């Protein structure tokens, strides 16, 4: 009886410790990956690009996305300014297959995109096409390499490295994750030589229509003195898309999706 009691106490103590502990690297990566693979969604944001010695370029953009564990399809469309209205980019990727897509320039010019163009800049920003699609939290190698406080928030540093067959232009990515809200507050992407190629800072966090914490304002730096800011004003889930909208032929159409009936 005594032994049973002791074992029970030990087991209880162990469980309590487990539940209070920080998530492991794979748990953290799984959770963050799942947050990105959130089905159909619609985003409205402003994209500001500031290059040294140049006037700031501001674009109003709508993003249509279909993200699942197996495939990611994203359409970026410029709404404003007038002279660039209608410019659109379609990016697709199925599993670990290379990226495909199309670029549309009004009134009717369209050209295909392939994996070789993955490093090109999206609408002249510090973000590349590859960055838009890549969900590095699904990569094979995930490890917690330390902790650090970012903006007075304690963060776990999660290092992600692509496994065999997982193509990426980066050798590794580090995310400073606020494990209380499950929001990366900083992301650094490294080249094979260990240089920081891109740094993404979360400037503000908001809650979305599913009451999840998401980065609302991001600042992205890919080269010296140049900075891109993404300022999100809306995120809706459960929107209805037609397959046509995610084809090169459908890129010229500009419409706002309807929310599925509740």
């Amino acid at each position: 009886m005594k032994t049973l009691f002791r074992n029970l106490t030990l087991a209880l103590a162990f469980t309590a410790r487990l539940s209070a502990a920080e998530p492991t690297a794979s748990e953290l990566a799984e959770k963050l990956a799942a947050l990105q693979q959130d089905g159909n969604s619609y985003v409205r944001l402003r994209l500001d690009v500031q290059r040294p010695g140049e006037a700031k370029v501001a674009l109003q953009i709508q993003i249509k996305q279909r993200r699942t564990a197996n495939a990611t399809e994203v359409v970026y469309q410029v709404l404003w300014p007038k002279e660039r209205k209608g410019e659109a980019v379609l990016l697709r990727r199925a599993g670990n297959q290379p990226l495909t897509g199309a670029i549309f320039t009004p009134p009717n010019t369209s050209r295909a995109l392939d994996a070789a163009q993955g490093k090109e800049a999206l609408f002249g920003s510090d973000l590349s096409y590859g960055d838009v699609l890549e969900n590095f939290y699904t990569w094979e190698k995930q490890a917690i390499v330390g902790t650090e406080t970012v903006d007075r928030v304690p963060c776990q540093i999660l290092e992600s490295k692509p496994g065999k067959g997982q193509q990426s232009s980066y050798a590794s990515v580090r995310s400073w994750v606020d494990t209380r809200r499950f929001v990366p507050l900083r992301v650094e992407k490294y080249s094979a030589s260990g240089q920081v190629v891109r740094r993404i800072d979360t400037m503000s966090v908001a809650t979305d229509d599913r009451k999840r914490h998401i980065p609302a304002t991001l600042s992205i730096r890919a080269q010296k003195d140049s900075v891109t800011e993404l300022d999100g004003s809306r995120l809706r889930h459960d929107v209805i898309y037609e397959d046509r909208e995610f084809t090169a032929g459908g890129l010229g159409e500009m419409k706002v999706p309807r929310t599925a009936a509740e």
Partner: protein
Amino acid sequence: MTFFIVVIRGLLRRPVRTGLTLVGISIGIAAVVALVGISRGFEQSWAAGMKARGTDVVVSNMGSALAPKPFAANVRDRIAKLPGIAATCSIFVDMTSVEDSSMMIISAREWGGFSWQNLKLISGRMPTDAEEPAVVLGQTAAEVLKKKLGDTVQLETKELKVVGIIDGGALVENGSLIISLPLFQEISGNEGKINIIDVRATPGSSEDDVKRLCVAINSVVPEARAMVAGEHVGNSQAYRFISAMSWGTSLLAVIVGVLGVMNTMLMTVFERKQEICILLAIGWKRSRIIRMILWESALLGFFGGIGGVLIGVAGVKIMETLPAIHGLLEPDLSVGLMINSVLIALVVGVISGIYPAWRSSRLTPSLAMQG
């Protein structure tokens, strides 16, 4: 020489320390003025906006965001059937980034609804029908977007022509883009959805009647909440958070102020120990010594309060001119708030002086003979 001069000389004995203490209290009081002014102003201008729309009850679902959550447009039909209601107006209010401005209020109103009636045209005209791709801008919104009559505003995928500039009689109205509800629902993909219903009670309804009306609405509309107009922004979690933050910060500022003044006054008492003993030895009553110290700390509070009000008002005025905030703030910098802030500072001063004054009155006059 008056007793007041004796008090002033005490403060001027260490001008740098007195100055720094004043700066400390001023910053604390400036925080009170700015934060409380801004949060009160927000609530008041929202209430004024409701009045300007001629609304008695607002039905909405305020969540954690500043814009309420959408619900089905047919909710309105259930409300309209209730007794005691003169009119209803369906609205969709959204906050979004428009062109190169960061956050704008879009107020989409039921075509023909009473919420259009109180808009005063400054120039131009109202849209001719519900489908006309047109927008009416509040005067602040026009300023922020740098738009004039005839220009176009890009809202989502649609270009809308600015046909009128209006004075809505309240900050919220003046900072809004006002368009017809069906047009906005189509543009934003929110067909069949609204997020606010403005309700006008039958003329002659008392405040209690309006409150009873809210209860009746709440019983038939579980997806939203009816509130007396002007109260409903106070129901927003975001607003309550801002309000709690402003009061919390103010309280902290006041505590810091108390500690600052108390520290200064204690230092003063320790430093002037012998002087106080001399005053006792030449016949000053202990009560006069207490009064002297309390007056000094009260004056520190008073002048710190005045400085704080000036810094707070200046700070808010500067904030109002910032491009990111312009048009979004209408702080309530009323005389009442300023007087209250100075009074708070004065009370802080007096409270902070009580312990040092008590300490000073405990000194024995025979110490004057030493040294």
